[in-house]
């Protein structure tokens, strides 16, 4: 089972990016520690994010290529790798997963063999509802919506073992893939294998409480994204000094 764990600070940073540029579509990259041999049973941590754009720049490959190139160079010298992309459209009614975002996700998938797209659903950020505001999509020949599981704080690290023991088939989308190559090579083993995806975040109540604090401290004003950097090169977009 492929497991994605989103760290609390990353979750907050991408929401802060969305807060700073509330009237624009925002895009950014998700980073995590490098994994040497990704398999279908890896646990993939998402520990950082790099905010990129607050405009329709994500639709143009010149901007995306440049951002991916620079962030890849950064990752190489910091034992990180690009895990996925996050996006939030400016319009509540627009389609869930815009095709330029799918393209970015697929490019990342080619680079690092694993990719997740997070869409910020601001309808879920309503007052009084303590819930996470993201939708996750994983790639297995096409983009599939994966349920975001919120795990209580103390179980966050151990959550992997917990969930793998439980029968969570109603939560997890099961995708079957045929290994045609194996058939061709004459292997008699069962050629089908199941690929499960899990996407986990921390305790939702705590996430919302912390986010409220960050908003009061005006932390969103300190977010610097790639577009901002191009206007003022002295600003650093690769490391956000928040939290």
């Amino acid at each position: 089972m492929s497991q994605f764990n989103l760290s609390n600070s990353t979750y907050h940073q991408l929401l802060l990016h969305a807060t700073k540029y509330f009237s624009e579509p925002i895009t950014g990259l998700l980073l995590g520690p490098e994994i040497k041999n990704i398999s279908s049973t890896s646990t993939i941590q998402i520990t950082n994010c790099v905010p990129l754009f607050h405009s329709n720049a994500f639709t143009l490959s010149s901007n995306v290529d440049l951002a991916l190139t620079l962030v890849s160079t950064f990752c190489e010298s910091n034992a990180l790798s690009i895990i996925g992309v996050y996006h939030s459209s400016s319009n509540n009614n627009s389609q869930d997963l815009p095709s330029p975002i799918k393209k970015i996700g697929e490019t990342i998938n080619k680079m690092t063999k694993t990719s997740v797209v997070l869409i910020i659903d601001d309808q879920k950020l309503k007052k009084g509802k303590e819930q996470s505001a993201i939708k996750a999509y994983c790639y297995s020949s096409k983009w599939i919506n994966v349920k975001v599981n919120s795990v209580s704080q103390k179980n966050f690290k151990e959550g992997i073992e917990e969930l793998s023991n439980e029968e969570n088939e109603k939560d997890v989308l099961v995708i079957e893939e045929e290994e045609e190559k194996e058939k061709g090579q004459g292997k008699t083993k069962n050629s089908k294998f199941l690929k499960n995806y899990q996407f986990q975040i921390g305790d939702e109540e705590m996430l919302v409480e912390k986010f409220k604090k960050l908003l009061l401290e005006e932390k969103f004003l300190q977010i610097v994204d790639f577009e901002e950097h191009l206007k003022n090169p002295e600003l650093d977009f690769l490391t956000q000094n928040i939290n």
Partner: protein
Amino acid sequence: MNKNLETLQNKPNNWKAARDLLREYREKQARNSYEIIKYGLPLINKKSQKLSKEELFEVMEQVFLAGLDVNIEESKTLLLKLQKQFPKSLRVTKLSGLLEEAMGNWKSAITIYKSILKNNPSDQIARKRLVCVSKAQGDVVLTIKNLNNYLSHFQGDTETWEELLEIYLTQQCYSKALYCCEELILAEPNNYQHHYKIANIYYTIGKRTDLIKARQYYAHSIKLLKEQNLKSYYGLYLTANKLKSLYSKNLDQSETQINEQLLQFAADKIKNVYLKLEDNDTKKTVLDFFEKNK
């Protein structure tokens, strides 16, 4: 950092800095709604006597607009004050339309704008707001139709060409986006931003002739603005690099040489920009990148 902002962070009650900051934002038409409300509301509520009447109402309008993004209750209060002061004003009616839009009351907003257009058929702002309502409702087809309709009457309106350009980009209609960009360049040929934008689109389409065009437009953008145009230098570098890696067999001797020269020119300029800056992760990454890709 902005001088006025710095002052306000140390002395939040400095009404002069607040007034100057808001003046700056009005000039640039900046949508820094959070800051406008934060520093503008106290100015209106506590220090209104320090401003001239004219300026006070301009600030009230500005804070009203900011409130539509950040604090809609404040906007409602401000609108009532403005309506009391200017009872039959067209300008204030438009603001009431904006409030309806911000609350999502599309029908009321449309009614307000249509009634404005009945009595003032050449009013551009009301027409544009009608387009904005269809955009906010998510109706892409209708929005494109409305924008094209508007542009058939007002061809010189660059703001609307930019809006149409953005919508075509989100729908990945690159040839139509190119057309919009060409109109922008026709209207404002010395604006480096338009040349930069069209170069981006050509790069995205990505065939050999498009990349060469992209390279030309990035170069022209740089010619129009040599400093503070880092994004065009990056664009020039990327395009020359892509031509070199994908199409080097299709370029003859002189073309290859030109490409190489442009590549080096862009790389050197970018490196020089970063070398003058303080050390940080981005500076290190960029210089690393150029080291590895000599």
